[in-house]
């Protein structure tokens, strides 16, 4: 007797929970050949608002954790990703219509990037910070601090790699993230959220919205409680308007990038979402 398949409903990831969209909307995700894969939630502006609230609540805890601790938590995610390799490879094969080898290569690259960024957690401040020479008996030290809530429009042309390449660097410095997943390939992003939910990442540190970036991005760009906006995957949107709206509330903005090298690993992606704090401290005069 044949068995009926049980298709999975992919939901949003907000504040450590997996809610449906507040609007109740879903959309069909189809494979490269047009076959039905799954229903994904179509997030509304209120889901985006809720995600920002969850992210804001998580900033103090995550940004306040020691860099070493953040690094350990991020490494742990890479370990869990490794354990779910087969699931991600199968998902990417189906969604993108690529061969197993290509899908495997994408998953490997994603895990390697995650590890690379995790390693920077307790090292980037040494590179991005500085001990400044001053004309007086003082230490003058500049250190990078997290900017707060970062909204990311992730690269739209990949399932997993684009998501990892943009979310991981924002996390390294201690920011909380609201990520808008690829509209065509949202499933791996939600599967990754399931990994995050069972790892040591505090709730609200990463929030994943699926649906239409064109619909959600303007609300995130103009949201006064979002501190930075990564538009790397917004090339097909009216991103100039988004940048202008973001300027109204003085957000840090990264512009769209296209092609296979979009969001390539770089220290700049970490330091882009930091604020430099400079402190003075007296030297001992003996």
């Amino acid at each position, binding site marked *: 007797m044949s068995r009926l398949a049980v298709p999975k409903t992919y939901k949003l990831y907000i504040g450590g929970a997996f809610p449906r969209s507040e609007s109740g909307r879903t959309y069909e995700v189809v494979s490269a050949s047009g076959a039905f894969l799954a229903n994904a939630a179509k997030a509304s502006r209120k889901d985006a608002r809720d995600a*920002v609230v969850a992210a804001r609540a998580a900033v103090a805890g995550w940004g306040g954790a020691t860099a070493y601790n953040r690094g350990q938590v991020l490494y742990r995610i890479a370990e869990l990703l490794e354990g779910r390799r087969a699931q991600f490879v199968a998902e990417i094969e189906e969604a993108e219509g690529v061969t197993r080898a290509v899908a495997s290569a994408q998953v490997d690259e994603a895990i390697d990037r995650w590890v690379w960024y995790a390693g920077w957690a307790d090292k980037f401040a040494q590179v991005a910070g500085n001990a400044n020479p001053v004309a007086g008996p003082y230490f003058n030290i500049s250190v990078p601090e997290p900017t707060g809530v970062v909204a990311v429009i992730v690269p739209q042309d990949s399932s997993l790699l684009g998501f990892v390449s943009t979310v991981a660097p924002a996390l390294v410095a201690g920011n909380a993230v609201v990520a808008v997943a690829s509209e065509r390939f949202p499933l791996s992003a939600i599967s990754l959220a399931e990994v995050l939910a069972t790892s040591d990442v505090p709730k609200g540190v990463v929030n994943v919205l699926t649906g239409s970036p064109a619909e959600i991005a303007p*609300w995130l760009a*103009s*949201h*006064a409680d*979002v501190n930075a906006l990564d538009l790397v995957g917004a090339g097909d949107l009216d991103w100039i308007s988004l940048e202008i709206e973001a300027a109204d509330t003085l957000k840090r903005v990264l512009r769209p990038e296209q092609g296979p090298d979009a969001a390539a690993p770089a220290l700049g992606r970490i330091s882009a979402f930091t604020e430099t704090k400079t402190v003075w401290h007296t030297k001992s005069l003996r």
Partner: protein
Amino acid sequence: MPAPISAGTSLVTARERALAVLGGEPDDATLRRYLHGIAGVDAVGLEQRAAALGTRSIKTTSKSWALDRIISLIDLTTLEGADTPGKVRSLVAKAMNPDPADATTPRVAAVCVYGDMVPSAIDALGGAHGDPDDGGIAVAAVATAFPSGRASLDVKLADTAEAVAAGADEIDMVIDRGAFLAGRYGLVFDQIAAVKEACRRPDGTSASLKVILETGELVTYDNVRRASWLSILAGGDFIKTSTGKVQPAATLPVTLLMLEVVRDWHLMTGQRIGVKPAGGIRSSKDAIKYLVTVAETAGEEWLQPHLFRFGASSLLNDVLLQRQKTTSGHYSGADYVTID
């Protein structure tokens, strides 16, 4: 027989009315017979009704109206052991000008402080001190050994009289929950009546008396209904859910239940009693549910400062954020409202 409204209720009238309603002296036995004769609360029905009232969709212009109305019904509260005159001054500044970036924002109804902070509050209010129905901001003081109420009657009365003498317009008293739960209704009645007497000013006017039931400690809905009737019979001008120091504080079903008592009392005597949910109302969304419940239960005429109040501190900021969203069209953030 239309009775006088709000603070001006004559004490003689209140006592006479109680005697008439009870059919005897307000001692333990008579009150017990009366209060236990009231029909029990259908808890499931009450919670279902409250949940149903919470599902109304209030949008656009209705929402704007509701947000402004919520602000004008707030008793902006600070009741901390760490309160200082400076903290009260900043609270008053916020009460007078909730959103400095938008002059069209209404003022709150009152500031609610401990009795010893009343002079600081009045000082800071200056010319803005007045009746919220006339656009002023009243000063409410908690009294009677708030929040536990565990003190002798003399101490409670002195506490009350001192706050009134200092210029408090409204007194928020707590009932003796221990006595109530032990069935000593006469004692609770007498204490409320005595505090009401202590609210009198030398010129014959009287501070408005809010009676805090502390519903979180009364355990059952039946007790809440009895305590509401008892407080109104004893002369309270307002019945208030909670001190905010006990969980659960205000909930929608409890407030609905108290509104039903107030409605029934109005039908019976023509007198309008106020209701004040306090504690735990933090979001505009929740506050709008309360507005709907008031309008659907007691009537829209109750949505004015002398008949309905929110006891809240963090609610105001959330309403201001929503208000900014409504006027500007984009979501606002905590950096755009003042810190308490």
